[in-house]
């Protein structure tokens, strides 16, 4: 029988907006240096142009770094005591260029329980769409947080 979960269902359908996030060369430099990124298109205009872009681009997981800056409400799941980052998904849709301004829009996608060998866990999934200054969607990001018994 499916577990009846208690949480704030009124959060469904609400979009939580954040930004604009200025994607400067310094932002990309710092993201690159902290992860050892050395791909030429992520390092300079020259490297990006050689790869067919109009200028320097950000690495594909930059929006996953930015997503943490979106203020999200407590889902008030009545289950477990500790929460952990269980997973992350990114679907890049268009290049993010240095000097772009991104905005984010997040909504609660799902809350569900799963039972395995180590017991039951409850997952809270948020979905965030990042768009650039032209309204073009550049990435979809999903974050999943798990609560343990």
């Amino acid at each position, binding site marked *: 029988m499916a577990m009846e979960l208690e949480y704030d269902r009124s959060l469904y359908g609400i979009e939580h907006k954040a930004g604009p996030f200025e994607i400067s060369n310094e932002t990309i430099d710092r993201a690159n240096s902290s992860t050892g990124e050395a791909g030429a298109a992520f390092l300079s205009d020259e490297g990006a142009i050689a790869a067919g872009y109009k200028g320097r681009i950000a690495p594909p997981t930059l929006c996953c770094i930015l997503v*943490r800056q979106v203020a999200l409400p407590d889902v008030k799941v009545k289950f477990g005591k500790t929460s952990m980052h269980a997973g*992350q998904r990114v679907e890049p849709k268009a290049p993010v260029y240095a000097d772009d301004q991104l905005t984010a829009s997040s909504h609660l996608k799902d809350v569900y329980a799963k039972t395995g060998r180590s017991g039951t866990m409850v997952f809270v999934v948020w979905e965030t769409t990042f768009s650039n200054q032209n309204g073009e969607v550049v990435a979809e990001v999903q974050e999943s947080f798990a609560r343990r018994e």
Partner: protein
Amino acid sequence: MPYYDEVELGDEIGPVEKVATDDEVSNFCDVWGTPGPNRFTDAETAAKSGMKGGPIVPGIMTMAMMAQLLTDWGGPGSIKDLDLVFRQPVPHNRALTLAATITDLREEDGESLVECDILMTGTEGERYVGGKAIVTLQSR
């Protein structure tokens, strides 16, 4: 970078060995907007959070490392989808092995897609991060 018709089911991407040092994690947390001390940068805070092996590498940082494996192979704009599960805490300053195995090849909506299972493991066989990725390659 390989062309689509050069790859086959079962081909491996990598393996590549990486290490996330204390300094890199600290730098990443600054960029990420979670400056220390926290369970990623401070041993005491990590212990209070139940991390017996010391501070851990943020999941999103491991994701960036996995993405590098794919973009180094397929090109800077090759990732269509990267979907990861953070299976267990990833320690600092330890050798991490990243590899992917091609599980499907298909042409869809004019794109040549390569699907793969991707995994980050430790020296004792720990399966730290795993998941699936879809990469697009050029056709000749």
